[in-house]
C-alpha cells in the first residue's frame, strides 16, 4: 500500500508531466480511465496558474497572442511550479523563461516588457509598510550618521532595461492596432524605479546618475559612502526618496544583510 507521501509525489509528477502516470495504478478506474480522471486536476492546475500569469503579464499576453501565451505558460508551469500557496508571488522567473524561448527571438524586447510587468505586479501586491519619516532620524547620534543604511519599501523595484519596456507596455495596453508603430523600440536602454504610491503603482524613468545612486542606496551602502561620492545631487536624490515614500526603515548596524530583491 503506498504511503500518503508516495501518493502525493506521484500525483505531482503526473500533474506536471502527463507522461508520468505511475500514480494511475493507485486510482480506481471504471468506465472512466484513471488517466482521464487525473486530467481533470491537471487542467484545473494549468488553468489556475495560466490565469495567474496572465493577470501579471497582460502586455506580454497581447504581444505574443493568447494561444502562444497558453503554450509558453504550460511549459513554464512544468519546469517552474509555484512554491507558495499565495499566487501573487508566482511567476517572477517568467521573463527570463520567455526570453530564452527560441520562438520569441523575433521579439527581443519581450523579456524586458515582462520584467517591467513583474515590477508592476510586485508593487501592487507588496506588503504594506509605513514610509520612513525623516524626523525618525532626529534621535540618531551624529557619530552614527555615516553608518546609516536604509531599507527600501517592499514595493520598490529598480529596472535597468535594454528596451523602453514601459513605453511598449503602455502602448500595447492602450489597445490600438498600430500601437507599436509609434514606439522607437531600439531607442536605447531605460532605467526605471517602480513602486506603489497610495493606491496606485508608479513607474519613473531615471538618469544614469540617479539610478546608480538608488542602486547603492537600496543595495545597503552607508550614508557615509554615499556622501563620499562628492556629487552635489546626492542630497537631493536622498531627500526625494523620503518625499516619495520609497524608504521603509534604517539601521545603524554594520551587518550587510539588507534584503535585496532589487533587480
Amino acid at each position, binding site marked *: 500500500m503506498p*504511503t500518503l507521501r508516495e501518493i502525493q509525489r506521484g500525483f505531482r509528477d503526473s*500533474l506536471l508531466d502527463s507522461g508520468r502516470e505511475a500514480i494511475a495504478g493507485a486510482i480506481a478506474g471504471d468506465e472512466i480511465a484513471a488517466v*482521464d480522471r487525473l486530467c*481533470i486536476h491537471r487542467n484545473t492546475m494549468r488553468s489556475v496558474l495560466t490565469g495567474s500569469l496572465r493577470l501579471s503579464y497582460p502586455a506580454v499576453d497581447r504581444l505574443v497572442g493568447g494561444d502562444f501565451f497558453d503554450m509558453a505558460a504550460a511549459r513554464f508551469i512544468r519546469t517552474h511550479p509555484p512554491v507558495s500557496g499565495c499566487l*501573487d508571488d508566482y511567476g517572477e522567473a517568467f521573463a527570463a523563461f520567455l526570453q530564452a524561448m527560441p520562438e520569441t527571438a523575433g521579439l527581443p524586447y519581450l523579456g524586458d516588457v515582462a520584467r517591467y510587468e513583474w515590477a508592476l505586479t510586485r508593487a501592487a501586491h507588496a506588503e504594506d509598510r509605513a514610509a520612513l519619516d525623516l524626523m525618525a532620524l532626529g534621535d540618531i547620534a551624529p557619530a552614527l550618521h555615516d553608518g546609516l543604511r536604509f531599507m527600501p519599501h517592499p514595493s520598490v523595484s529598480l529596472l535597468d532595461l535594454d528596451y523602453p519596456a514601459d513605453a511598449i507596455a503602455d502602448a500595447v495596453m492602450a489597445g490600438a492596432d498600430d500601437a507599436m508603430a509609434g514606439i522607437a523600440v531600439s531607442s536605447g536602454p531605460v532605467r526605471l524605479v517602480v513602486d506603489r504610491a497610495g*493606491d496606485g503603482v508608479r513607474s519613473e524613468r531615471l538618469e544614469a546618475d540617479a539610478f546608480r545612486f538608488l542602486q547603492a542606496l537600496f543595495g545597503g551602502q552607508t550614508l557615509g559612502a554615499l556622501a563620499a561620492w562628492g556629487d552635489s545631487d546626492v542630497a537631493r536624490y536622498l531627500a526625494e526618496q523620503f518625499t516619495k515614500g520609497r524608504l521603509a526603515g534604517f539601521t545603524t548596524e554594520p551587518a550587510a544583510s539588507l534584503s535585496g530583491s532589487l533587480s
Partner: protein
Amino acid sequence: MTGPGASPPSDRAIPASAGIGLRFQHHEAVLRDRPRIGWMEVHSENYMGGGVPLRCLDAIRRDYSVSLHGVALSLGSADGLDSAHLDRLAALTQRIEPGLVSEHLAWSVVDGTYLADLLPLPMTEEALEVVCRNVDIAQARLRRRILVENPSSYLRYRHATIPEWVFLAEVSRRTGCGLLCDVNNIYVSACNHGFDAAAYLAALPVAAVAEIHLAGHTRRDLGEGRSIRIDDHGSPVRAEVWALYEAALARFGRVPTLIEWDNDIPPLPILLAEAGKAERRLAKAGEARHADAA
C-alpha cells in the same frame, strides 16, 4: 435579509443567513452600493499581500461580517503545513477578525511545490492522522476553531478504506474543528462515484456543521454514455442541489449559507439574487423549526 447597518462593526459573528463569495470584480460595486446581504466570504490567499485589495477588505469589513476561506493551507499534506503560509493566514485573521475561518479536506503541497488545485486524499487511517495533526497545528496557531470543507471528487484510490463522510466526522470529533458542508460538492461527488448524497448528509454530526456552501457545476459528456460532474462554480445552483440543500437545512437547521461563483462571474445583482433564493429557503427552515418547537 439582514442589512449591513443592522450589525455593529464589532459584531464579527456570521449570521445564519445567506452570504456571497466576494471576488475582486465586485469590490467597487460593494463599496459603492453597500448591498443588503448578511455576510461575505473571501479567499484568504487573495489578501495575503498589501495594497488595494487589503484596503478594500478592511473597508468592507467595517460594514459586513466576513469569513476567510482558504484554498492553499493544504491540510492533507504528508509534509505538514507550510509555516510561512500559516503565519500569513494568522496575520490576516488577526487583522480581519473573521466570523469563520475555513479550509478544505484536500492537499495541494508536496515537497514545497504548490499544485494550485484541491487534490484528493486517499481516505486511509494514515491520511486521517495527517489531517488531524495538521488541523490541530492550524487551530493552535490561529487560536480558534476552523471549519473543514468536504471536497468535490473526481477519483478514488484503490487502497481507501474509510468513507469520506466518516472521515470528515472523525476529523471533527478528534480535533474539535467544525465542518463546512458544501452541498454542491456532495451532489457532484455522489454523481461521480455513485453514492447516496442523502446518506452523506445523514452521517455528518449536526452540531459540527457551521456553514453551508452552494455553487453551480457542469456535467461533462465523455461520450459512450459516460459523463462526469465538474465543480466549476461558473453557473447558477442547479435544481437538484437546491433540493439537497433543503434536505440539509431540515437536518442542520438554519446555517450560514454562501453562494460561490468564481468563473464567468455575473454582475453583482445576479449573485445577490442567487443568495436571495438561499435566504428564502433559510427562512422556511426557520419557520419549520419554529412550528416543530411549538
